[in-house]
């Protein structure tokens, strides 16, 4: 026990002595937590629309105004040639072209039906899909208005309308920060602990000091615990500062679920994560190798854990990978506890899985560690 305490003292000293690392451990994540949530918003708004009007009729102008005043669209051109509008799309200045053919108003009244042309830059499929459906809705509304104006029989006009009422639970203002902040906090803690832990041990290997330690009466488990415990505390510390200072005072997020459950999960999660760092360390010979591997996994964790893109939308094999990442579970738990106030019963399987992660990763690392040294 005393040996372990001495080791811990030494590790903490080493960490705090390294003036280049300190800001990276403590300040960088908090700055990221301040900035990132502001950037992470993919709601489709501000669709740039270029309007090509060959008709120049009252009706075509009314349609233009209706579209612009809907709030989704921003007019970036009211021209007379499709070619020019296409150039705007090529230059990313426009996302959507509406082309009104000659005789639009006249034909509509005479022939009772008239086409108009919508071309959408679909490189971003989601934006294109939603942009198309917004435009469709606006045109339908517009059409309805015209019928009211031109026709007398109401029977013809309204075949039955479905009204849609929407309510948004848990986050009625659709505040993106509520969703992103807890998850980004998870990622930051993960990055710090996984990187630092995997680099720390391999560094001793690379510099050669690990041999000196092996030559002392320090037991291996003491050495490993001495390495892991400081990062476990650092992880807890960063998470707490993020949650109680930044999330609360900057973003106004107060967890509505049980803090005890959250911290219990965090504690186990950190053990799993540190086990992974240890595993990487035992397999790598140089810091560069350790870092490449850690980077590889962190990137997969980050992109596939449901942080940014929903897991449900992924192909099945990718879902499998997502569910093999501890980060997925922690992000889910954090969101459930912080935003929805879910209880132990709702997250019991998350607990079971993270405990399995902790046991498997640490056991694997220990077996590897004994074999290599």
């Amino acid at each position, binding site marked *: 026990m005393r040996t372990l305490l001495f080791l811990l003292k030494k590790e903490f000293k080493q960490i705090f002595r390294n003036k280049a690392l300190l800001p990276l451990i403590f300040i960088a994540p908090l700055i990221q937590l301040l900035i990132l949530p502001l950037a992470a918003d*993919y709601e489709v708004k501000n669709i740039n629309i270029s309007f090509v009007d060959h008709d120049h009729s009252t009706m075509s102008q009314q349609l233009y105004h209706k579209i612009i005043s809907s709030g989704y669209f921003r007019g970036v051109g009211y021209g007379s040639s499709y070619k020019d509008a296409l150039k705007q799309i090529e230059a990313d200045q426009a996302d959507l072209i509406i082309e009104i053919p000659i005789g639009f108003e006249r034909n509509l009244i005479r022939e009772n039906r008239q086409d108009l042309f919508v071309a959408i830059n679909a490189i971003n499929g989601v934006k294109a899909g939603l942009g198309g459906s917004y435009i469709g809705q606006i045109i339908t509304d517009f059409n309805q208005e015209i019928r009211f104006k031109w026709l007398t029989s109401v029977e013809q006009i309204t075949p039955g309308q479905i009204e*849609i009422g929407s*309510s948004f*639970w848990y986050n009625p203002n659709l505040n993106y920060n509520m969703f992103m902040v807890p998850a980004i906090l998870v990622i930051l803690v993960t990055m710090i602990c996984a990187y630092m832990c995997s680099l720390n041990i391999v560094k001793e290997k690379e510099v050669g000091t690990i041999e000196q330690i092996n030559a002392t009466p320090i037991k291996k488990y003491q050495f490993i615990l001495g390495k892991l415990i400081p990062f476990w505390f650092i992880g807890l510390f960063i998470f707490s500062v993020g949650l109680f200072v930044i999330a609360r005072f900057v973003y106004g997020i107060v967890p509505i679920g049980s803090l005890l459950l959250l911290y219990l999960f965090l504690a186990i999660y950190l053990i799993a994560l540190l086990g992974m760092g240890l595993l990487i360390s035992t397999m790598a010979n140089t810091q560069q190798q350790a870092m490449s591997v850690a980077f*590889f996994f962190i990137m997969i964790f980050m992109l596939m854990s449901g942080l940014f893109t929903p897991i449900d939308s992924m192909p099945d094999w990718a879902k499998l990978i997502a569910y093999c990442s501890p980060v997925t579970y922690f992000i889910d738990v954090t969101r459930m506890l912080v935003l929805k106030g879910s209880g132990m019963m709702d997250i019991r399987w998350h607990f079971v899985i993270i405990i399995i992660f902790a046991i498997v990763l640490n056991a694997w690392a220990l077996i590897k560690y004994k074999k290599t040294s």
Partner: protein
Amino acid sequence: MNQFITFIRKEFYHVFRDSKTLLMLFGLPIVQIVLFGFALSNEIRNAKIAIFDQAKDQTSQQIINRFAASRYFSLQNNISSESQIEAVFQEGKIKLLMIIPSSFEEDLMHSRKASIQFIFDASDPNTASTLQGYANAIIMSYQQDLVAGSNIPLQIIPQTRMLYNPELKGAPTFVPGVMALVLMLICVLMTSISIVKEKEQGTMEILLVSPVNPFLLIIAKAVPYLALSLVNLAVILTLSVTLLDMPINGSLFLLIAESTLLIITALALGLLISNSTANQQAAMLIAMMGMLVPTMLFTGFMFPIENMPIPLQIISHFIPSKWYYIIVKSIMIKGLGIAAIWKETLILLGMALIFLFLSFKKFKTRLQ
């Protein structure tokens, strides 16, 4: 010149001797491109929804069938009482609950107005608002079909054409983004420790007393990584085209030239980090912590930059991969030439020169 070549050769030996690292430098980008190219998309598919159908009539069934047929939704459990609503959301099993009132069909036929209620799990607001768009569109199209059946006069019919990506696939947005992300990060990562490693191990002094110009010394460090990155680029492009169905509509030569420019920019940035830090650990953490997240966010393939607050939009201008992403989309998908992207090219070139200049400057101060 001879010395320079000898130095480059030495650096190549260094890189190639460490086979484990080499394997990673080649393996990781390949795995990541394939993984993310297939798995990532902002599109929401199979969002789990529950239905509380109080009407259980023909109309409500028709609407439910439309939701079931949509690739955006996947029907889960039906619920049968109001008291279950809260529970299904808290378990986190569903994103949307659709409530159809009992008098739905009757209202629609007789009073010509019926209502449907949606409850979204807005703890994920992005998904909630996207799903709202999809759900509304389904109801709208159902309604339109009712209209079409009743032969309404004065119809304006939009003919919609999806340019560049008619099937609305995720790949055209995400593959160029992942290309930019992976190339950028791998390159920065590789060079970020190249010089600091020598500093840390003490071999730097030996290099400095050699008669080689420090300028060439830095360049020599980057050359093997440039070669490696070009090979990586070839692999990444091949995978994108063959496996991920990305077109190359523009000039392949131009694409390679622009990619080389990005690689050089990233390598120069890595050198700058390497020259400015004192040990490998710090260099790596800066390269990782400092680069990963901003690059991911500000490249523009995940979150539209035009949605961000102005200060962040300004920050995004300083991220090289953002400009590269625009370039790749223009060349590969839109098939445009240099005339359309000269501005972005100049910006990248400027960045490369600034990074190189700064890293030489940093390096020289170390000499004294």
